[in-house]
């Protein structure tokens, strides 16, 4: 599975090129058609062995990140956020900037120099800067351009307990799963769609669905798991190790009940773990897809990930395996008439 390579790849919303290249290379031998649309969505097609429901299996390629917004005379770089990031996680992180992947550090005053009241408050994005080592504005501008994307720099590693840490599991884990699922043969026409710009408003998915006109869509995601110390169990949303999570409803979609019930049936018949995403906020590409043209039945299956939208996330590799198995079962066992 390509999770390591995809997680370490650079792909902030609108700048998904590197991720798209990796995916394209991986899927080209597996599918009948490959194309990239106007917005940059990568759309691949496997004909299948017979006619039947047209299925769209999709994951977004983009990650949240930062963008270069200006230069100080002393060579420090000002930046803005792309997608939802908590200002408080930014200080002291290592980042890479632009196509050349110029390394830098998000700087702030060291603790020795802070006044007592400064230590109590967290720094806002406007107060932060990136230090790439340049001594002047001119020197910095030689390496970095206004509008260059900035991504967190985090190595993918497998850690204790069958877990893995890395950046951008939301949603490179989804991308890795779609690629993996494309390796098998299925009865019905299958579109694998790797979308752009989900993190800034689910922009790629709508146009891709408009083009494809699918009968049903499954969105694969890395969703939040909050099974950690500060919350009571009712606030966990999802739990690591308890299998793929099904969305019933979020702020963008009420998942198609027939698809959800079929997923539950598949999981139960095969003694596989599953859970619900126990939270109704947030949104995914399913919101856009479901409202395309005359409407598309859509559902979301997620791998639980701790600390999403942060420089380092943690997921359980067993959940990834189980999600893949479930999606494969779904694609094989779907009735010929679809679920209508």
């Amino acid at each position, binding site marked *: 599975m390509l999770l390591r390579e995809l997680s370490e790849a650079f792909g902030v919303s609108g700048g998904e090129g590197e991720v798209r290249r990796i995916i394209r290379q991986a899927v080209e031998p597996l599918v009948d058609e490959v194309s990239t649309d106007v917005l940059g969505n990568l759309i691949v097609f496997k004909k299948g062995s017979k006619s039947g429901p047209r299925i769209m299996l999709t994951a977004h390629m983009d990650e949240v990140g930062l963008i270069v917004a200006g230069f100080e005379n002393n060579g420090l770089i000002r930046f803005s956020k792309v997608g939802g990031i908590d200002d408080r996680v930014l200080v002291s992180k290592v980042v890479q900037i632009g196509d050349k992947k110029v390394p830098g550090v998000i700087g702030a005053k060291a603790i020795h120099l802070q006044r007592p009241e400064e230590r109590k408050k967290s720094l806002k994005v406007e107060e932060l800067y990136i230090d790439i080592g340049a001594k002047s504005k001119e020197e910095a501008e030689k390496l970095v351009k206004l509008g260059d994307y900035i991504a967190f720099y985090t190595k993918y590693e497998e850690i204790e307990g069958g877990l893995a840490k890395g950046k951008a599991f939301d949603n490179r884990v989804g991308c890795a799963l779609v690629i993996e699922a494309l390796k098998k043969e299925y009865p019905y026409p299958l579109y694998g769609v790797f979308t752009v710009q989900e993190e800034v408003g689910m922009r790629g998915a709508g146009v891709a669905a408009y083009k494809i006109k699918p009968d049903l869509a499954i969105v694969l995601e890395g969703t939040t798991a909050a099974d950690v110390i500060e919350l009571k169990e009712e606030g966990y949303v999802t739990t690591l190790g308890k299998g793929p999570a099904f969305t019933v*409803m979020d702020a963008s979609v009420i998942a198609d009940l027939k698809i959800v019930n079929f997923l539950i049936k598949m999981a139960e018949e095969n003694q596989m773990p599953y859970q619900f995403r126990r939270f109704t906020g947030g949104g995914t590409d399913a919101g856009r897809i479901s*409202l395309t043209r005359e409407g598309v039945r859509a559902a979301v299956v997620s791998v639980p990930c701790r600390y999403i939208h942060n420089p380092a996330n943690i997921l359980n590799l067993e959940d990834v395996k189980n999600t893949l198995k479930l999606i494969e079962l779904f694609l094989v066992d779907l009735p010929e008439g679809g679920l209508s």
Partner: protein
Amino acid sequence: MKELIKELTEAYGPSGREDSVRDTLKCMVEPYADEIDVDKMGNLIVRKEGPGKKIMVAAHMDELGLMVTFIDENGFLRFSNIGGISPYILLGERVVFHNGVKGTIGCEKLDNIKDLKLSKMYIDIGFSDKKEAEGKVKIGDVAVYQRSFSDLGGRILAKALDDRVGCAVLVQTLKELEKPANDIYFVFTVQEEVGVRGARTSAYKINPDLGLAVDVTRTGDTPESETMAVSLGKGPTVKVKDTLIITHPKVKKLMVDTAEKNNISYQLEVLERGGTDSGAIHLTREGVPSGVMSIPCRYIHTPSEMVDFGDVQEGVKLLKNILHKKVT
């Protein structure tokens, strides 16, 4: 027609779970419709054929709901809202699930009532452990207010008048339509309360020449209420503007002219916060000239919404007259 409103308001149908109210509506319209279709999203599309342009008339079937997100060891259900629900009106409220399971809403001990949030509240369905509770209700199941219809004489009190009263107006209009001058699509939409979703996809499918939504609107006629020039009992409204739409001048004129010509009382409505299905319809494809007729309603989104029956009857009259007139 009060019977119609009673049956519709007492039906179960939160956003995304409109099956039961849709079945009820289907039975009501079947004898009068030329074509009936249920689309992928679950919208009920009822056609009354006529010679002219395509007119889409929408009223949403869905009501607010509470979705179960967690069941604890002692059988208490945590929940999230579907649509705009204030935690304050939920205290002590009774709710009912699709399968008839009933419960009440309680909340954790609070030092200050201002700290009340949905996350501090739970549904108690009368079981003392998780297993028993899970036998009745699952995560993802949805409860609605448990309230019956009350006929107060001139006025009506019920849950979900938003927008079952709109559905009732459509059904009654369909019954009374003889020979429409236009090709009419009555659409009973899904998922309005979570973002006018059903109207968007059904309008794409129908591709109408003119769109009308029938929904409820706020009033400014209660003690110390917000300022709004709409009252109960002064007739249905012709919407001028809300958050999602500025009524197309042609549609507004059509509605106002029809009301005045037929001596139907009406009020002009400017709604500062809120929107309805027309917001989605008018932006479909190349754009659809659209408007809204509202039934004034007090206490919207609470378990006890109130409308004036006279306004409802006048609404049917206005809608019927609009549909009988050939739209150009």
